[in-house]
């Protein structure tokens, strides 16, 4: 179809009018903003981040009920009773404050794990794509094998052998490791694909024939082109990671008490399910909506950064 015409030119013969040149990022940002679900997701995530950061402070200053205090007289009370807005769990601990503290773990796992996955995936993908040939073959076979290992099972196995005790962020380390080990394959494949397509472009050939180091050239072109898909992949990795951590906590092999985690809370609540079902519902919904929020953001980013949808 013809290029849209912005103005009628009486004298003009040429109906070609160049499009306004918008940068990729501005364009993406605009598109993202127009995606209501994505914005909603971003809102939820921001809210959670605030909660995660503020909650220890609020507890310290007594605004929130101490999540570790077990009020024996108030076990499994329904929401609203005894000054507990969301009720208490089977040990009499306030659910709302536990819920808020729990966000720390989920967000930390989700976001930080990506920082581990990124270098691993990037390196392997880069190596594979750049060197090509047998190294590429070998690495790709390696990733195929790795892919065959179901992620949840692998994480469970790793966690069963490797556990550190101490404060919760120490305990997280083996979990980080396990999750990262399971999730790097997608990123590596993506990077490799990008490197391969860059290698095929003519200017690399030209540069090579004129003697400049192709590695530098590849890196220079790699980043701007593939930053978009890489960001999308990492963003989709966040709910995956949060999910894995939640399952681990639910099964009792994740972060141990006293630090509350949502998975743990679902498990605890499950034991009290007949007496006080909301103790299951609240953490379950928390997990669900957090995952949903990140998924919306991921979808929104992907659509926003999709070069094919540019006008």
């Amino acid at each position: 179809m013809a290029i849209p015409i912005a103005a009628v030119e009486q004298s003009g013969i040429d109906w070609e009018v160049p499009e306004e040149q918008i940068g990729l990022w501005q364009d993406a940002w605009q598109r993202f903003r127009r995606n209501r679900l994505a914005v909603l997701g971003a809102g939820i995530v921001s809210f959670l981040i605030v909660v995660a950061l503020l909650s220890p402070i609020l507890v310290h200053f007594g605004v929130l009920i101490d999540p570790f205090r077990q009020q024996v007289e108030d076990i499994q009370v329904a929401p609203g009773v005894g000054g507990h807005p969301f009720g208490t769990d089977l040990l009499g601990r306030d659910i709302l404050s536990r819920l808020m503290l729990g966000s720390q773990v989920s967000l930390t796992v989700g976001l930080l794990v990506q920082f581990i996955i990124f270098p691993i995936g990037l390196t392997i993908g880069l190596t594979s794509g750049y060197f090509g040939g047998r190294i590429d073959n070998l690495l790709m076979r390696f990733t195929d094998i790795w892919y065959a290992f179901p992620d949840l099972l692998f994480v469970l196995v790793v966690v069963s052998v490797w556990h550190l005790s101490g404060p919760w962020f120490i305990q997280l380390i083996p979990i980080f490791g396990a999750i990262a080990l399971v999730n790097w394959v997608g990123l590596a494949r993506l990077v490799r694909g990008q490197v391969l397509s860059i290698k095929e472009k003519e200017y690399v050939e030209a540069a090579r024939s004129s003697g400049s180091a192709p590695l530098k050239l590849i890196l220079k072109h790699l980043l701007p082109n593939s930053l978009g898909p890489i960001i999308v992949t990492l963003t989709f990795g966040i709910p995956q990671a949060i999910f894995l951590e939640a399952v681990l906590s639910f099964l009792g092999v994740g972060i141990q008490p006293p630090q509350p985690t949502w998975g743990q809370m679902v498990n605890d609540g499950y034991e009290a399910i007949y007496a006080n079902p909301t103790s299951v519902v609240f953490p379950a919904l928390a997990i669900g909506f957090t995952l949903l929020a990140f998924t919306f953001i991921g979808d929104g980013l992907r659509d926003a950064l999709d070069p094919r949808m540019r006008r």
Partner: protein
Amino acid sequence: MAVIAGRPRRDALLPRRLAAITDSRLGSLGVYVVRRILWMIPIVFFVIVITFVLMHSASGSPWDKEGGRQLSQVVVDNLNKKYGLDKPIYVQFLLYVWNAVHFDFGLSYQYEGKSVTTLIAEGAPYTMTLGVLAFSLIVPVGITLGVIAALRQNTRVDYATMGFATFGASFPNFVIGSLMVVVFSVFAYKATGGNFFLPASGFGLDDHLIMPVVTLALLPTVFTARLTRASTLETIRQDYIRTAWAKGLPERLVVIRHILKNSLIPVVTTLGPTFAFLVTGSVIVETVFSVPGIGRAFVTAVTSRDYPMILGTTILFSVVIAAANLIVDILYVFIDPRVRLT
């Protein structure tokens, strides 16, 4: 020999008979299958190695019951000898592999004297029942929903199905399972005074199956529906569909022979990963609903550090998933005539 336009003569150096065999599609299929089966071996081997290494890198010996009484050294030595833990590690490994090939995965640490194989066999029927039921829910429901949403694109039906799908897909298995229990067991019980509710645990060939199967099947159904919808939408836009309409074919024929036959191809390829998903999902679902299957046995093995059990079930799962992927790959060759097997 004439060169048929568009079909170059096969390499004449290959001996005629062999060429006749491998040239035929069936022949190449055989070669392909064999190659893929052989490829499964390094995969499984890799799984065994990794898991084995992990098991044996665990700190402490399996006899250190945390927080319990320490066993005397004599007892520990005897136990070690009994379970073969006193031998050097590579010997243990080779022994293990040898036994594994014979389906002997050793004795469980948890249950005195019970072999891992027995434990697996005991749990198998439950897990398989859930899996088969879930699968038979996923495929028809997922595909039907996806097709309907695609054919009625942008109508309320489409938005409703896909909205529900996205929503459901974001909530993990155990979350959905727990919420279902809350609604259909607890709430229903309270609301109907104990008359109507779904049982929350245990196994039985009755309404005990409903919640676990639905929980297990939900996510894969959603994925399948979404993929079917996307694939069908893409197929509908193709030129050959226009050709089909232009020939004056009835709607039913166009939808089935032209649209679906093409759009379902990518869906079939995801059946392998769907199967894998069912396997890992069973771990969670069986725990939530207290179904005595292999998945739950795996979890208890993990929490009680029953290494032979962990090792055995992991290997089993990996083999099963690899086999499922293989079957799907073979199926794919039959569905898509464009696939080249070399």
